């Protein structure tokens, strides 16, 4: 079902951030050596939700004002957040990168589609796109940094 209203899109954003947060929390438990990174991602997820909500409540003066802007298909942004028992760190990071790319696409599309609203709204979405790009790069760097570790190498190759 296509989402048209800003509140539906914000609810979807909240759900996606929540799922992504749980994924990183689970990852942090599984890999204590990188838990600091993963928990900081989980914390950022909460921040993204707050940022979007703050702009929404600050700029859109009533819920219906943003009721005609979006054409978001939730199915396009379904993310896989289940960590399999035996998954290696490398594969888990690979899954995280895929998830981040999908989330980035969701915010990119939301930014594009909300251009007819006050500029603060697409700007808020665009800012999360940028922050997610940094996160993707950080995740990629984790892969590179850990390449020399045996466990990591064997799971990559």
């Amino acid at each position, binding site marked *: 079902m296509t989402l048209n209203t800003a509140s539906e899109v914000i609810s979807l954003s909240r759900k996606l951030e929540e799922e992504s947060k749980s994924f990183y929390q689970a990852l942090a438990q599984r890999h204590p050596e990188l838990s600091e990174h993963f928990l900081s991602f989980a914390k950022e997820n909460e921040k993204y939700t707050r940022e979007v909500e703050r702009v929404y409540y600050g700029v859109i003066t009533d819920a*219906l004002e943003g*009721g*005609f802007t979006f054409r978001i298909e939730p199915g396009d942004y379904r993310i896989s957040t289940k960590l399999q028992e035996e998954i290696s760190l490398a594969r888990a990071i690979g899954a995280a990168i895929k998830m981040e790319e999908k989330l980035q696409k969701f915010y990119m599309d939301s930014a594009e589609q909300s251009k007819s609203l006050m500029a603060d709204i697409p700007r808020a979405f665009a800012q999360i796109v940028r922050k997610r790009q940094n996160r993707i790069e950080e995740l990629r760097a984790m892969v590179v940094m850990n390449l020399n570790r045996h466990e990591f190498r064997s799971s990559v190759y």
Partner: protein
Amino acid sequence: MLPFMVPLWYSPFALATGNTFIVKPSPRDPISQVKLAELFDEAGIPPGVYNLVHGGAEVSGALIRHPDIKGITFVGTSKVGKDIYQKCGEMGKRAIVQGAAKNFMIVMPDANTSATIPALMTSFFGNSGQRCLSGANLVIVSEEDIFYNKFLDAFVTAASKIKVGYGLDESIQMGPMQSVDGKERVLSYIERGLSEGANLVLDGRQPKISGDYPDTCFIGPSVFIDVKPEMIIAQEEIFGPVAGVLRAKDLDTAIEIANRSRYGNGNAIFTSNGKSAREFQYRIESGNVGINIGIVAPMAFFPFGGMKESFMGILHGQGRDVIRFFTESKVVIQRWF
């Protein structure tokens, strides 16, 4: 004397500048104000600083006459507003009176259609058209039939797809009218439009309602075409989800049509041409002016002002104006020996 959440245009400024504040909500929608007063209470505002008094015209009259009340702010119809403004004058009270509106949304042939349509849907049909910043008349500027027909078709198609239903369901795009009276009023304007010869190309009188709700207050988006500036439906505030479409050959004509209105609250132009935008912003007689913005609501740090019969007073709501309204100014002339 303020409807809905409009007291927030004033109360934070009044309290911050050391005043006490009495809200008399509209008797038609008092609940949001009760909630707000509870929040003020919860926040620890001392008793007597933020006050809520319910009632109708009698209560308003008592507030205006009360000697301890220094100023009145009002948002509502121009007719009642004029009366209040007059009484405030007689009592020597300062007043900010914001009245009715009939807002024009002017679309130039160079407008970005895909961005303009959602903005217009919000403007005309958000809140079911029940706000003073709603679009009311859509003026499509085009001598060419191609652009006019294409844009009109996009506008009507988008309006026809609006999901009407229970307003707290987040997938719903348009809720009900605030009251049965309100719906009746809108229906009577639709009848009026038909009798005046306008062509109802989208009829919202029998809306499809999402969910199992009685149709007591629901009305769907309606669009009239072939509307002429002299028609009642082009002049009076309908305060509902009814768009009147007018056609102008050029920007000058569009501005001239809009400026003929006795109201001047929030008019907007949709264009990608800087010259058209500048012409519009300088020449349109409107307190709030939008460039590619459907609801021209200023942020709280800017004054909210109407013109002509949409506003009575000198200082506007919000921003610096309202700070001046809620304070006394002094000039100190000094010399030291």
